[in-house]
């Protein structure tokens, strides 16, 4: 009987609501995610940014998202958003770059924002975060905390973001511990909890006593906790998964950026540009430093502060490559943005080979 009533009620709603309610005065903002919002990692954090945007500007904006969009199939998904009245569209994965540009050409009055890419257009801006700043802080902590001097690194794919992360981590670790070794396992996936767990176990079995990861699930962290070893979280604060062994997490923080960019559209001041922000721009945060003695904590905080204030650049010159040759210093006292964004070499001391 209850269900019958429910259905009757639903039908009554239908009668009055056959056409979707129009909210013409609100700015429609669309988001395209490569993973599921339930990954508790990369796409989850982008979605947290969307929710923050709704909270901040809920009166003036309406947001929509598409999750788990396959990259090769994304042009249609992006266009669906453009043709349903979304005026600002964030495409949040590198693989969406060409599709975003193609759709943008067709919809010159819609503003697009593509994350982690390098091609812009009149109505396509790009944005990314300096995740490697967080990796440097992690490296400092790991260098201090390790007893075996072996760190295990669960990596996804050898793209520049991951490679610069490994290097930055290593440079941070070497700054406090010259004997440190990093062992790398490429899982060849962003998200396969079982495989990530196996990779972490393999690294622990080979003598690593701290695990760090550039894949998206909390599985490696859980393995470290189960073995009584230490680990770092990725993309979101993962402390709930390993309260006894987590040192900190690098947290992607898109809230401010999404709110700021949307405000620009509302004010009619949006223009295409490239944003690459780290600690200072509040696009990358460190979760609370836990499970470490006070002196290490202090050191981590100082390092974070130094990077934030611009006093310290993780890639300050000189940087030496694997063969010990000095890498040309094309920036101002540090490697240039282009060198970091397209990084395809390892720094000295890393015992692994990159595919050429």
């Amino acid at each position: 009987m209850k269900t019958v009533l429910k259905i009757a009620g639903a039908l009554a709603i239908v009668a009055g609501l056959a056409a979707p309610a129009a909210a013409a005065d609100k700015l429609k903002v669309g988001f395209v995610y490569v993973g599921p919002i339930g990954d508790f990692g990369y796409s989850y954090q982008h979605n947290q940014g969307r929710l923050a945007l709704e909270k901040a500007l809920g009166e003036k904006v309406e947001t929509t998202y598409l999750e788990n969009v396959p990259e090769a199939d994304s042009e249609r998904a992006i266009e669906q958003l453009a043709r349903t009245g979304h005026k600002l569209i964030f495409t949040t994965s590198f693989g969406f770059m060409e599709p975003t540009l193609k759709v943008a050409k067709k919809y010159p009055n819609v503003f697009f924002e593509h994350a982690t890419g390098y091609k812009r257009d009149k109505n396509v801006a790009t944005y990314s975060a300096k995740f490697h700043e967080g990796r440097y802080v992690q490296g400092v902590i790991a260098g201090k905390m390790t007893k075996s001097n072996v760190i295990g690194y669960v990596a996804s794919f050898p793209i520049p973001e991951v490679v610069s992360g490994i290097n930055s981590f290593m440079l941070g670790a070497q700054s406090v511990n010259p004997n440190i070794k990093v062992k790398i396992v490429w899982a060849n996936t962003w998200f396969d909890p079982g495989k990530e767990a196996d990779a972490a176990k393999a690294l622990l079995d080979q003598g690593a006593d701290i695990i760090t990861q550039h894949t998206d699930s909390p599985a490696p962290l859980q393995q470290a906790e189960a073995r009584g070893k230490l680990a770092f979280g990725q993309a979101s604060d993962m402390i709930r998964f390993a309260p006894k062994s987590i040192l900190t997490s690098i947290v992607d923080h898109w809230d401010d950026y999404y709110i700021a960019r949307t405000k620009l559209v509302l004010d009619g001041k949006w223009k295409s540009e490239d944003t690459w922000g780290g600690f200072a721009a509040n696009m990358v945060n460190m979760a609370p430093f836990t499970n470490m003695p006070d002196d290490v904590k202090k050191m981590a905080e100082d390092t974070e502060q130094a990077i934030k204030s611009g006093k310290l650049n993780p890639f300050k010159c000189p940087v030496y490559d694997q063969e010990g040759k000095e890498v040309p210093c094309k920036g101002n006292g540090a490697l240039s943005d282009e060198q970091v964004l397209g990084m395809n070499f390892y720094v000295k001391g890393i015992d692994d080979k990159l595919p050429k």
Partner: protein
Amino acid sequence: MDIWQAVLITVVTAATPLLIAALGELVVERAGVLNLGLEGMMAVGASCGFAAATLSGSSLVGVLAAIAAGAALSALFALLVLGLATNQVASGLALTIMGLGLSGLIGAGFVGSGREAIPPIRIPGLSDLPAVGRLVFGEDPFVYLSLALAGGILWFLSRSRAGLTLRSVGENHTSAHALGLPVIQVRLLAILFGGACAGLAGAYLSLVYTPFWSPGMTAGRGWIALALVVFASWKPLRVLFGAYLFGGATVLQLHAQAASLGFPSQVMSAFPYVATIVALVLMSLGRRKAAIAPGSLGTSFVPDR
């Protein structure tokens, strides 16, 4: 704990979900039905298992819920392929699509929460033996269950009368029916058993292997389990061998990477798949005839009265 024992324990964990799911599917296929919905049933098992365990606070309730969920989903499959004689391949694939969706809906409220893994068994004295203690006497309960399952199914298929009936139904449903064997009922039970196993395998993922839930956490393991049944030529002990071979190859390549042997990571990641093919080729070298699938596998049965 020495490294070899640690590595082997990792292999056992990697192999167990594949083994459980593949054993269930083996029974289904020996009854003549091909259920390609393993991935979907595992996903639903993982989400229901985690949800029920979290809500009730009891891992056992979680495991039972996962089994029930897998069986329920397979009942829907049975309704289609037995009740309506729909195409088994297409029905199984549709089941996978639906299962992945359902799993996401069920699990949505549990994103970002973890729990303690179901602990390994401890037998005082034995579990602490050097070299083999943890490996042989200190695994989690699922591992022993999966081994018992392999042995039980072997006995059932080769020694029991009901097993003989099941095999006859799978070999030739027309003559089995002519002999008065209840083809549809046998197949229904087999499908439900397969679904229950898939659900259990899913629970292993979300309650032991990586004790949290997230969408897509099965990551293709259902497909690998399906392939293992074929690899095993529909024999239970060979499924056991196949699952451990595949799990072993996966863990081995990760260890090889950690030891930085210098191969491209893609080559290393391809290793388990290539190794499985090579192993199958080697195993078939000794035989003259190809391994024969159950005679009625994948075909619908409609009795003419």
